[in-house]
């Protein structure tokens, strides 16, 4: 079976006025299905740029990236949006929930843009919330939830469309160590039970340890790739 993610000579150059900044300097790697990858690196190492490209939020300057056999090159804004909707679940450091809407509605958001009828949408959202242990708090608004609960809502939102890959950008960055452990436990369980591929950025060694494979970025290149 071919890998879920195939990346070859990925280069990203930003133009900041006159200056050119090379964020990625030729990254090649592949990630198989059901892997749990932790990406590490100091700030400015290019790991966030890498994640943006991985999430079809940004185009690489050159190089090749295939997700599930699908390339993002030459695709329109709307086509990229559709790929994000169908194949990628995002979990962010700052949770990024819509503040004035309930947990259930937040989780339904990707389904709304996936044109799923309202009744089915609610069912799927309920299921996703149950999967992260929040079945009792579906009608709470983000402000009524703790940080850990908010991040679980965000995970439920990422999972609700059953995408093949979950991209997490510093998912524990705003959480204390106990709650971080709980979130990681959920990631591990999801990875084991559903076989969802997880790619997670973190700068914390102990969080990275939850991943089965660790990749270290430095100056826009992969400098270390180890399976634990």
């Amino acid at each position: 079976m071919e890998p879920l993610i195939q990346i070859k000579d990925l280069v990203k150059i930003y133009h900041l006025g006159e200056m050119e900044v090379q964020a990625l300097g030729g990254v090649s790697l592949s990630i198989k299905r059901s892997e749990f990858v932790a990406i590490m690196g100091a700030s400015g190492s290019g790991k966030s740029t890498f994640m943006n490209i991985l999430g079809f939020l940004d185009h690489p300057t050159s190089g090749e990236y295939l997700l599930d056999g699908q390339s993002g090159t030459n695709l329109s804004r709307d086509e990229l949006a559709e790929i994000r909707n169908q194949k990628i679940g995002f979990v962010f450091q700052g949770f990024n929930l819509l503040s004035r809407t309930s947990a259930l509605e937040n989780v339904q958001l990707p389904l709304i843009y996936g044109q799923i009828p309202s009744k089915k949408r609610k069912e799927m959202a309920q299921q996703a919330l149950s999967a992260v242990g929040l079945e009792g708090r579906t009608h709470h608004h983000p402000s009524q939830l703790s940080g850990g609960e908010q991040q679980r809502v965000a995970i439920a939102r990422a999972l609700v469309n059953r995408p093949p890959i979950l991209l997490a950008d510093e998912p524990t960055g705003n959480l204390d160590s106990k709650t971080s452990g709980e979130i990681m436990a959920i990631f591990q369980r999801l990875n084991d039970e559903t076989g969802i591929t997880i790619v997670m950025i973190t700068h914390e060694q102990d969080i990275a340890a939850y991943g089965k494979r660790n990749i270290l970025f430095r100056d826009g290149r992969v400098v270390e790739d180890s399976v634990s």
Partner: protein
Amino acid sequence: MTALFASIRIALRALMVNKMRSSLTMLGIIIGVGAVIAMIAVGSGAKRRIAEQIASMGSNLFVVLSGSATSGGMRWGSGTVPTLTAEDAKAIAAEIPGVKYVAPNLNGVAQVVFGNQNWSTVINGSTPEVLEIRDWSLASGRSFTQQDIDGATKVCILGKTVAENLFGGSDPTGQIVRIKKFPFAVIGVLAPKGQSAWGQDQDDVIFVPLTTAQKRLFGMQFPGMVRSISIQAQGPEVMKEVENQIVDLLRQRHRLQPNQENDFSVRNLTEVASSAEESAKVMSLLLGAIASISLIVGGIGIMNIMLVSVTERTREIGIRIAVGAKVRDILLQFLIESIVLSLIGGALGIGIGIAGTLILSTFTQWPVLFSTQAILLAFLFSGSVGVFFGFYPARKASLLNPIEALRYE
């Protein structure tokens, strides 16, 4: 359809978050729509009043006035020299095919007495056709007959104002009034006609047979003379032709040489009327245009607030785009928000516009006229203001870069 309702619900919720801001933004549209409704109502009220007055005057009308006198190089006004005769009127009726009715007039002001009441009014000597020309019906009694004209009988028909002033509430028909000391039998009372386009009370008049007026009331040195001849053409299309024929016929009858000026003048009253109507139309258009400006100002208010709203919700937009919202989804979300804002404002504006207009007309006695069309138009216009001024902010939102939007604090 359900998707649309869901979008409207989302928009309403977003607007409810900032109630104060939303209602102030709406106020611009409310005032704009209210002003448009009120101005159109006032304008069309005025237009209708003028149209009614014109209709009460009669349609396709000419008035031939006897000529102006020239004495010692000084020219006097029309009608100062009696040059028209009842025979002229008969000739016009007989010889010009496009003419429907002809009525010669000889009028003057006289004091009318009944019992202990008296009233000064216009006495109009004419033929029965005069009522046909002016499309004037009788409220009671009868009109003149040919016998009345031939015999110069002392009968009269009273206008509403005269009847009220002399008789109060009672029926004047069959009573005897005195005009210039002569007793006249009242044979009929005219239906009320109201003000003319020039503000005259048309009901303040008495009609008597032409011959009676000539022989008894306003006797002149030349028997048979009349002051003017009213003529109604058969339709608007023959007006020009009839006018030329009247001039030719009268010049011939008055034996005028080619180098002599007309000793009479022909006035086309329809032209006078249509110019009055035209100015009313321009007036109401102008009022509507001024009011529309306030609606546009309201629209700019919407645009301003929507731009603020897009900036405030940059992060929300970033989240939506990240999880798969397409350009159209975001565009529609913000567009619907501004349309909902402007349509609610439009609906409230209609209510306030109607209420305000009614209050205005109560205090000023201006005639107002609401039309469903105008109200619908104002509502649709407010909707299109929402689309027009909401589009730019919505477009801006839909094209945000998701990476930057997600990082926005």
